[in-house]
Structure formats: C-alpha cells, structure tokens
C-alpha cells in the first residue's frame, strides 16, 4: 500500500507546478485535484517519451525526466502573477459525508487485489508486460496472439501502474485500485471548486458528494475511473470556459480532454464530441474557441500516430464497419430498445431527464454545451454498437453500463446546478443581492 500512496502523493506534488503554470490562480481543492490529474497525465508522457527514446524505465531515469519537467513548470509558474478567484471554497459540514463516501468506496476498491477480468487481461497485463523490459513492449502489442489485450487502447493507465511498480521496486497489484480512488477524489475536488463559483457552499458541498459517488468507477482497476476523472474535469472546465470565457479554464479543459484521449478510445470520441458541441453552442466564436482546444489534440496525437505506425488493430474497424453499420441501421430501434432495457441505474437517468424538463428554459440554454456533449457521445456509442464486429447483445451487455458512467458526472453537475440555482433564486428573490456568491455574466450574453 505504501508504494501506491507514495505514488499518489508524488504525482500530486509533481502536478502542482504544472497546474500553477497553467493557472496561477489555482488554490485549494482546484489546485490539489488538478495537480493529481496533471501529475498522472504528465507521468504518462514521461514514460512514453523515455520509451520512445529507448531509455529504460528506472526510478532514476523517471525521476530525472520528471524533475526537468517539474523545474520547467515551476519556472513558468513563478513568472506569472494573478489574483486568486474571489470565490474561495468554503468548507461545509456536508463535506464530512463526502469524505465518508470516498472512504467507503476506497474500502470497496481495496477489498482484495484487483479482481476485474479486464484488469488482468488488458490494463494490468500491459503494465506488467512493459515493466519486464522497462519500456513499451511493441512486440507484445503487435503479436497476433495478444489482440485480446486490445493493443490499440491508449496507455495512460498501464503506464501509471508502471510508475507505482517502479516506486515499489516490482509488480504488486494489491493496492493499485487506490489510483482509481485518487482519480475520483481529484474530480470531486475540481467539481467542488467550480461549483463554489456558481452556487452556495451548501449546494456546492451537496453536489460534490454526488460527483464523488458518480466519479467512482465500480470497474476497479480499469481505465474507466481515470477516463471519468479526466473527461469529467475536461467537460466541466470547458463549460466554465464557455461561461466566463476564461483562458485558464480553456487550458485546463483542453489538457484534461487530451489526457482523457490517452485513457481510452472513448476519450478520443469525447474530444470529438466536445469539439462538435463547442462549434454548435457558439457558431460565431467557434474558430477562436476551437484554437483553444488545440492542446487536447496535441496530447492525443502521439498515441494515435504510434498506434498507426505500429498498425495496432482496432476491433471496431475490423472488416467493413460501414457495411455492418448500414446493415444494422434498419434494426436500430431494436438496439435502442435493448440499450434502454440494459441501462444501468435507469432511475438516475429518469431523474436527470426530469430535471432537464422542469428547469427554466434560460438555465437549459446555459447548459446546452453539456447536453450536446452528452448527446453526441451517446450517439457515438450507439454507432459503435451498430458497427461492432461482435454480437451486438454481447457487446451491449459487456460495455453499456460502463459507457454510461463516463457521462454521468458532467450531466449530473449541470442539472444539479440548474435546479439548485433556480431554487435559490426563487427563494432569494426578496433578499439582498450580496447574500449570493458572485457569478460572472456568461461571456456570450
């Protein structure tokens, strides 16, 4: 356990100057949450870079490379000056419940060494294989006998496991699930900081509790947890960036989405969904805003290039995906009905839809970016089921409940804030304005 905890702490410390270099105003939960995520994402690139340069991963080589980045980021951060956000995050008693929820989830995740099939057949397998040679084992990924390990999947999660193994002096899968817990905590901290800018401490604390619960993936040891954290944080930052046209939020959002694209292929799809949603939600300023998403594509590119260069097969692209999609299109209604039938936590989605319907129209308009991202990403998932070379029912059963968790945090965040702020405004109407937190005007209003 010590090695995993030291790794989480090291990644957080490593990420602090990166977070500050991007956003000198970051403080408190925002700084800690984003620091862990940046540390995790940057460590992936450190190991990827060393592997590409044919430098064997050792604690020394990784430490030296990390220190170079740490010092460069600290230098950049020191040169910047900015006032912290006026709306400091105020603790609330409800935060104790959130901490308790996270503690319970951590107990669940660490009941035993990681038990999920996909951990030891995909994510953990790759990490353990790479550790053997101190770098990415391209021969393993290219072998036709190892297609079951999905060689095309991005490597952020396995390489994070390798960092833990390097610190621990060898492979040990007993406590690796704590990295997933740390991702969920990081997302909750980011959500707490962003919510505090828009609502009261009570609602922000309540929303954080919900985000902590939704951000924790039941699929322990898989890339789901980090994808939910990076993708969720990315969407929430872009939402904030669109709301306030804040450059720091754009940088955070773009980089988080870039890291999400290095967690799973669904992260690449999420990046495309966000891009389309940014265009659709603001036609007039789309070119300028798209430029701000460039860092996300820059981060996503290396793995996409490497996997193309090594011709790593993607199961969805086997044979003719288009002809499969066209063949199944007439039966789309049956597949949609099956997806509805197999929906995990259906009441959660009923509540979300109800919340969208009963919220004031103006509030819905403000949240159109999050709704669009969710809808587009769901469309991608449905298209993947239509084009799958596998049996559709099997594919739905084995993945649909996981895929819907990817989108739960941002949509719940948006709907919760819509309703909470509507409720608050209706209650606050006769009272003084200065009782409310400062909410800057939306940039395009």
């Amino acid at each position, binding site marked *: 356990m010590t090695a995993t905890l030291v790794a989480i702490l090291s990644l957080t410390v490593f990420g602090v100057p990166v977070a500050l270099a991007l956003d000198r105003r970051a403080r408190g939960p925002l700084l800690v949450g984003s620091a862990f995520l940046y540390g995790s994402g940057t460590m992936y690139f450190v190991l990827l870079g060393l592997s590409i340069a044919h430098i064997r991963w050792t604690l020394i080589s990784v430490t030296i490379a990390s220190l170079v980045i740490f010092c460069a980021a600290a230098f950049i951060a020191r040169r910047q000056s900015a006032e912290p956000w006026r709306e400091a995050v105020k603790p609330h008693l409800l935060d104790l419940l959130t901490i308790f929820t996270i503690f319970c989830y951590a107990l669940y995740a660490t*009941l035993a060494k990681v038990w999920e099939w996909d951990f030891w057949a995909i994510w953990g397998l790759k990490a353990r294989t790479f550790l053997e040679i101190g770098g990415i084992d391209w021969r393993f990924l290219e072998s036709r006998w190892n297609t079951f390990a999905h060689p095309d999947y991005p490597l952020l999660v396995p390489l994070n496991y390798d960092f833990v193994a390097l610190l621990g002096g060898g*492979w040990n899968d007993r406590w690796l699930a704590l990295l997933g817990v740390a991702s969920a905590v990081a997302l909750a901290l980011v959500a707490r900081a962003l919510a505090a800018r828009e609502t009261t401490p009570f609602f922000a604390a309540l929303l954080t509790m919900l985000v902590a619960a939704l951000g924790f993936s039941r699929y322990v040891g898989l890339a789901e947890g980090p994808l939910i954290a990076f993708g969720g944080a990315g969407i929430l930052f872009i939402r904030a960036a669109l709301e306030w046209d804040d450059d720091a939020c754009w940088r955070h959002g773009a980089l988080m989405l870039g890291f999400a694209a290095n967690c799973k292929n669904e992260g690449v799809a999420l990046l495309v969904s966000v891009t389309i949603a940014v265009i659709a939600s603001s036609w007039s300023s789309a070119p300028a805003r798209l430029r701000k998403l460039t860092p996300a594509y820059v981060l996503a590119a290396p793995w996409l290039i490497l996997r193309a260069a090594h011709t790593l097969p993607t199961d969805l692209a086997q044979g003719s995906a288009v002809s499969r999609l066209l063949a199944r299109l007439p039966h789309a209604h049956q597949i949609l009905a099956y997806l509805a039938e197999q929906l995990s936590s259906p009441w959660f989605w009923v*509540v979300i839809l109800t919340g969208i319907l009963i919220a004031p129209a103006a509030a819905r308009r403000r949240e159109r970016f999050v709704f669009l991202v969710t809808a587009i990403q769901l469309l991608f998932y449905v298209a993947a089921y239509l084009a799958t070379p596998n049996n559709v029912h099997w594919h739905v059963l084995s993945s649909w409940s996981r895929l819907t968790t990817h989108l739960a945090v941002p949509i719940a965040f948006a709907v919760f804030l819509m309703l909470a702020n509507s409720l608050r405004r209706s209650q606050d109407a006769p009272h003084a304005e200065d009782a409310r937190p400062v909410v800057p005007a939306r940039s395009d209003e």
Partner: protein
Amino acid sequence: MVIGVESRMLLLPFIDRGPSEQAMATFTDRAWPDYPRFLEGVREHTQPGDTIAIIVPAMRWEAGYSYAFYRASYFLTGREVLPLLTPHDEPLPQNYRAAKYIAVFGVGLRIPPDAVWRTRRGALLRQRQR
C-alpha cells in the same frame, strides 16, 4: 443524490468485510483456485523470452481455455504465451511445435520423469529440440 450514491458501499465500514474480501480474492480463479500458484511455479522455472503453451482440462475457448490463456499471459509476462486454440476452437498445432515449454495443468496426462518441474496439479515440460 440517493440514486447516485451506492448505498450498499456505505455499509462497508460497519460490517464484517472478511467474507467479502475472501469472495473478491477468490473471484477470478473460482473455477481453478490452484491455477495462479501453478502459473507462479511455471514463472519461476522459465526465463524471460521463453515460449510457453498451456494445456488445461477445458480445451475449448469459451469453456475455459480463454481464461487459462489470458491468466497465463498475466502471470507469465516477459515470456511469450502461445494459445493452442483459436477463439473459434480451431487447433493451432504450429504453436504447440513452436513452444519451448508446455505447461500442463489439471489434466491426467502421464507426466514423463524428465519434467522440468511438477506439482500435485500439473507439470512443466520442455520440448525436445528439433
């Protein structure tokens, strides 16, 4: 809120987690509890770069061979684990011939006396050089 939070998990600090820990620890290998220990033995008796094929009681992909092959891949990292079946249950005799070692688990074969390593549930055989 109530729907979003997994209420069963909130009970974990207040219950005896022993049975859950035991269930989770044995979940993956519930069909063949000795298999991981056998694979660890195979790992100890082989070197990185060796090629190993696996023979288990379930020589059909969906009936357990996929589990045996994937699990062996996890425990025998650094070695090359070769399947003896395709996912469509077609035999792969070329992999049998190409393997330096054959790891036999839970099968009532007559184990030759010159086996590299043997245990109650299986053995590691070295193929003769051709």
